[in-house]
């Protein structure tokens, strides 16, 4: 039983690191060494980690591709845009309903998320080009369903054979008249991970959709929630809390989102950024173009949720909202406290490892600390240095061949719609009062001394870490789940939450406490050995009766 053999820590972090890379060929060992960081206090400086670099061929990575980041993560949860994948069938098939983005059809009755659309390219399309087929596919979808928008996604061969998907999109948009058609050059080979795909998706949404609807959105405290993907209903819980507080969420990027939400996003007065990695640049662009400031929030963890709500309320500088938020927190917290009280004796002092995402490995540490659990090792799958070390490193990030290929949009203030929501003085005053803008300290700062921070952890290292550090719980994704559990250690998926959720907000926190209690205290981990394996010696023949 994993929880039973909590051996006292015998190995120094340096030894563990050495052990992790000992089997690698020298070049691989050198590279991995820079992506494994022992969290040491360095005179007010965060130690440096290498991140957002190429995956090593042959090393079994957790990462996916640019297409997965673009179609799967960012565009997947938008319900009223038809996502048409231009390529052989597989890419569209694998991204079909596999991310647990919850949605409903809403009052307008549009929901294409349960569908999978593909041009299903054949060898003739590869040889002679697929533009004609793509054009016809768009027409067929339009004739069948009349969606308000069709998004086209390029897969690997599309870039290689040179299909001009953007021209096809432009022409079809013009031809159809009442259907916005736009395309994403998100071929899987671009970039080094999903992260490039997030960027490509967000750029195109910003370029083709944001600001398209000037019809006023009602609401006193209007915000956008950026980087929330409604896995397991997280977004629903956050929206419930916003509603209770009187906060209007104009647009979520992009959990349970709609075309109109993106189109109206420029009307919000504040951008609240959840997943820093996947979307911080959109927050910057929204500020430059429309004058909307942004703050980092985190709705994972009850205390973090309360803190984020207070931050939003402080921004609006309105006592009505500040009081209402306090009232909501006061109403919500008792159930949370009751749940912790129940669970804590069984979860306290247990240990966890988190290797997931570009923010989740950080955010979920909040929940584990509320459970009295220590995160002994963590890292991201596709994050950049700023997600580890904080945004102050951004000016110093190296632009390499891979990142240069990912477009950065140059944005200027909108001629008619740029309206700074706060002037310089107001921003300064708020900063003085503790509301920090464009600020994120990253994961490393929040982790204890001597913990191990590992970027792009792979299967071999995961197994070694579990063997050497014996955590009570390991968190990653579906590909990692069963190899860890075969070792007798429970594994929680933090990409898709296994079958659980929501884990955001107050109700989500309660769900999470109960789920972690179930996992680390399950009886199943005590059944690894049969009685005859526990006591193999036969001392005497069995005597009947």
């Amino acid at each position: 039983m994993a929880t039973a053999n909590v051996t006292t820590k015998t190995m120094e972090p340096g030894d563990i690191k050495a052990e992790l890379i000992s089997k690698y060929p020298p070049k691989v060992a050198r590279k991995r060494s820079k992506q494994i960081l022992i969290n040491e206090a360095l005179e007010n400086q965060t130690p440096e980690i290498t991140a957002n670099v190429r995956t090593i061929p042959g090393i079994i990575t957790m990462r996916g591709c640019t297409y997965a980041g673009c179609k799967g993560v960012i565009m997947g949860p938008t319900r009223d845009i038809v996502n048409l994948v231009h390529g052989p069938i597989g890419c569209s098939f694998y991204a079909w309903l596999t991310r647990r983005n919850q949605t409903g059809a809403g009052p307008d009755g549009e929901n294409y998320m349960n569908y999978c659309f593909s041009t299903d390219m054949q060898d003739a399309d590869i040889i002679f080009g697929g533009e004609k087929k793509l054009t016809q596919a768009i027409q067929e979808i339009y004739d069948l369903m009349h969606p308000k928008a069709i998004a086209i996604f390029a897969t690997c061969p599309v870039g290689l054979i040179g299909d001009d998907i953007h021209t096809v999109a432009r022409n079809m948009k013009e031809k159809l008249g009442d259907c916005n058609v736009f395309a994403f050059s998100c071929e899987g080979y671009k970039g080094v991970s999903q992260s490039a795909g997030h960027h490509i998706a967000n750029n195109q949404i910003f370029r083709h959709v944001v600001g398209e609807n000037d019809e006023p959105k009602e609401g006193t405290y209007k915000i956008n929630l950026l980087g929330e993907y409604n896995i397991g209903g997280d977004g629903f819980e956050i929206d419930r809390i916003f509603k209770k507080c009187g906060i209007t969420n104009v647009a979520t990027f992009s959990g349970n989102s709609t075309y109109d939400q993106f189109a109206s996003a420029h009307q919000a007065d504040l951008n609240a950024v959840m997943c820093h990695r996947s979307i911080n640049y959109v927050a910057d662009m929204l500020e430059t173009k429309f004058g909307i400031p942004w703050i980092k929030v985190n709705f994972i963890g009850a205390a973090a949720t309360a803190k984020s709500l207070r931050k939003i309320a402080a921004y609006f500088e309105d006592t009505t909202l500040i009081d209402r938020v306090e009232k909501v927190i006061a109403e919500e917290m008792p159930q949370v406290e009751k749940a912790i009280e129940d669970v804590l004796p069984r979860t306290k002092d247990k240990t966890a490892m988190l290797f997931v995402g570009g923010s989740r490995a950080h955010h979920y540490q909040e929940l584990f600390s509320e459970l009295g659990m220590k995160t002994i090792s963590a890292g991201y799958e596709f994050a950049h240095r700023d997600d580890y070390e904080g945004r102050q490193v951004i000016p110093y990030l190296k632009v390499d061949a891979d990142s240069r290929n990912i477009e950065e949009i140059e944005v200027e203030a909108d001629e008619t719609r740029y309206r700074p929501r706060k002037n310089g003085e107001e921003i300064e005053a708020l900063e003085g009062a503790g509301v920090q803008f464009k600020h994120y300290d990253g994961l490393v700062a929040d982790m204890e001394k001597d913990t191990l921070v590992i970027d792009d952890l792979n299967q071999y290292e995961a197994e070694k870490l579990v063997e050497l550090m014996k955590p009570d719980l390991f968190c990653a994704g579906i590909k990692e789940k069963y190899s860890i559990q075969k070792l007798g250690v429970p594994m929680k998926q933090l990409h898709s939450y296994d079958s659980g959720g929501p884990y955001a907000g107050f109700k989500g926190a309660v769900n999470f406490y109960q789920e972690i209690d179930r996992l680390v205290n399950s009886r199943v981990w005590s059944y690894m050995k049969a009685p005859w394996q526990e006591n193999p010696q036969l001392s005497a023949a069995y005597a009947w009766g």
Partner: protein
Amino acid sequence: MLLRHTPTAVAERKSVTINPAKTCQPVGAMYAALGIHGCLPHSHGSQGCCAYHRSVLTRHYKEPISAATSSFTEGASVFGGQANLVQAFNNIFSVYDPEVVAVHTTCLSETIGDDLPQIRKKAFEEGKIPEGKYVICASTPSYVGSHVTGFSNMVKAMVEFSESTGKKNGKVNIIPGWVEPCDMEEIKRITSLLGLSCIVFPDTSGVLNAPLTGEYKMFPDGGTTMEELKATGDAVGTLALGEWCSGDAARRLDKEHKVPCTVLDMPFGLQATDRFVDALRKIGGVHVPEELVVERGQLVDLISDMHQYFYGKKIALAGDPDQVIAMTEFLVSIDMKPVHIVTGTPGKKFEKRIREITADMDCEVNVRAKGDLFLLHQWIKNEPVDLLICNTYGKYIARDEDIPLVRWGFPILDRQGHQYFSTIGYRGGLRLLEKMLNALLDRKDRDDPETKFELVL
């Protein structure tokens, strides 16, 4: 409604596939490679392909799926993936030390024209592949065929390692096709009941239904060994189960090593199992043991006992060609009416076989190869059915149209049992009947008015 935008009227589509009944070649190659003992599948392409294939196989089997990737970058896509693959070999054998690496291509490496055997040769020459290790190479372009084609291509590639010593070894090769680990076990049980010595390849039993013991074996105990694979060249003959999955490999063995082959339908249902057992009997020159005769009789018994619930029921069926052909025959044999039949895999032969099997039915049959679940759903809207047999994606249709669903095929992402309880052979036939009866009778018990609600069915 989950699929609220699906209209009843069927309009011919030429360019868009909606809700596919297939996926791409490489995932089939990966699954086949897992049926070789000590084998690490390797995907030569972008890392996303490998991530997706591992994910869907993991979700289907709830087992670890280890596989590596060449992690193509933009540069590799322009200049070729040789450097990536050679480096991958070096890393794989240093870190994971498998017996075998089974490399398959992707649409990316196929489009740029990477030549796997040439890269393998170079890696051997440079010492990146150690002495005594094996590398299987399969070409699996995603824009041709389907996941079934990819499975077939990887199995065909395995035959490269068959050796003929000139002396027959008395064994029978069985190529089971893309079936579940427990199905492969069942095939081995049936052949051993008949007293035949067989080589089953690939064989995922013991690999993808492994126990939880507190120990993680990256390369589990199961799988066809390379020694067994070599010995296939000396076998007395090959039984290939399923034309789409296994035919090509069997014919390659025949061509290269003069091992005669017979291609049979996959032994799902009564008649296909009869033909399988009869073929084994003739090849081995043995009598069918009483035990198997009893199993057959039990299947016939259940068909007769519950015939009133099968008779005349209309079925919609989607899946892979070899499975669907055998299942259609089984359904017809118990007087059910498979009226809408779709496979995503291309092949006019499929439609022809289905037409032959259903020729005697007194109703119209819709059949389509290279079809999709969107079309199947539209057919169902036009002519409702009593039961849907499909993979997990069928549940969206089943719920919208309020039809009972039997999950069968790949992938099954929301129920368990497929890796443990076989649907092959006579015993598997019992299980199929049980699944169909449960679905139909649970529905009847739910829907019957109180006056008609009955204890005994």
